[in-house]
């Protein structure tokens, strides 16, 4: 059980995301193959593997760890998920304290800054059938439960992200390749929302909720 989101936990978060994304890469690719270009799983697998390779093992700053993660994702992923997840991690990192770790409340606020960055970059709103549909409720749930401590907040965020991802199934896509499909994009789980749920589930796993 962790009370503080410190550099060690930030590194472990990135490592566990990489493992879970690698395990689910084929599944994410299949989700993307239904409405996108099918590369989401492979792209994210490559991106988080690169992020693990770029982990700063010496710093005691969670902010520095996740800033490097964001940069690695932008550099390594030749698809939309690189700039989007890269921006997510870099923006949330910059909202963390400059040194050391972060309290649950500080991490909750940072998760919100991260998703705001994603929205500003991609122009997606809630309901557009994107990763935003998982990241927005996750940040809100985390912030609402932050007073219960880091593990409880991370679990609430993971559950909210999963529900948000599942709720993308009936939606019609309004961003990305899937938006060209019109009503044929309905009835499919959005791969970006699905991978965002994995990211938040990894956080819950790491902080011991």
């Amino acid at each position, binding site marked *: 059980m962790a009370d503080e989101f410190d550099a060690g936990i930030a590194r472990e978060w990135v490592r566990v995301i990489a493992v879970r994304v690698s395990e689910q890469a084929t599944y994410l690719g299949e989700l993307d193959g239904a409405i996108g270009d099918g590369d989401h799983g492979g792209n994210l697998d490559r991106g988080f593997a690169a992020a693990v390779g770029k982990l700063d093992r010496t710093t005691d700053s969670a902010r520095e760890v996740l800033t490097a993660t964001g940069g690695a994702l*932008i*550099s390594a992923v*030749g*698809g*939309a*998920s*690189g700039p*989007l997840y890269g921006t997510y991690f870099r923006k949330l990192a910059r909202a963390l304290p400059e040194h050391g770790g972060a309290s649950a409340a500080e991490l909750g606020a940072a998760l919100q800054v991260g998703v705001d960055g994603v929205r500003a*970059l991609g122009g997606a709103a809630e309901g557009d059938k994107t990763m935003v549909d998982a990241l927005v409720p996750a940040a809100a749930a985390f912030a609402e439960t932050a007073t219960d401590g880091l593990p409880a907040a991370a679990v609430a965020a993971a559950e909210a992200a999963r529900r948000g991802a599942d709720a993308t199934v009936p939606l019609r896509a309004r961003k*990305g390749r899937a938006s060209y499909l019109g009503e044929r994009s309905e009835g499919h789980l959005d791969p970006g929302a699905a991978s965002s749920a994995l990211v938040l589930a990894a956080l819950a796993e790491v902080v011991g909720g």
Partner: protein
Amino acid sequence: MASPVGIVLISHSRALAEGAAEVATAMGLGEVAVRPAGGDDDGRLGTSLALLERAVDEAQTGAGVVLIADVGSSVLLARTYVADLPEDALGPVLLADAPLVEGAVAAASASATGADVETVAAAAADAYAHRKL
């Protein structure tokens, strides 16, 4: 005349970026640096920050560079790159809201007249208004 504004074309396809750059270079009368940034690092379909950075470095003379992207992650990568541009960059870099081929032709034509970077970006965006029929 100062060096003309450079142009960088970002596409998922190396061939598409190079082909569009070939056309735009001709429209710039060979005086405008038009550089392709297409495909991923291995030449497959995708986008690459490293290729984009190299292309901008080659196109930048100090007068500025206009970026034109095709779709999806090309646009997201370009927006991320512009947002991260350091304060001490050699010159401005603007992302034009423009179609790739038509925007590149318009931008190169404008740049060859000695237009500044904002004017070149606006010329690229105006390409949306040029109907073909």
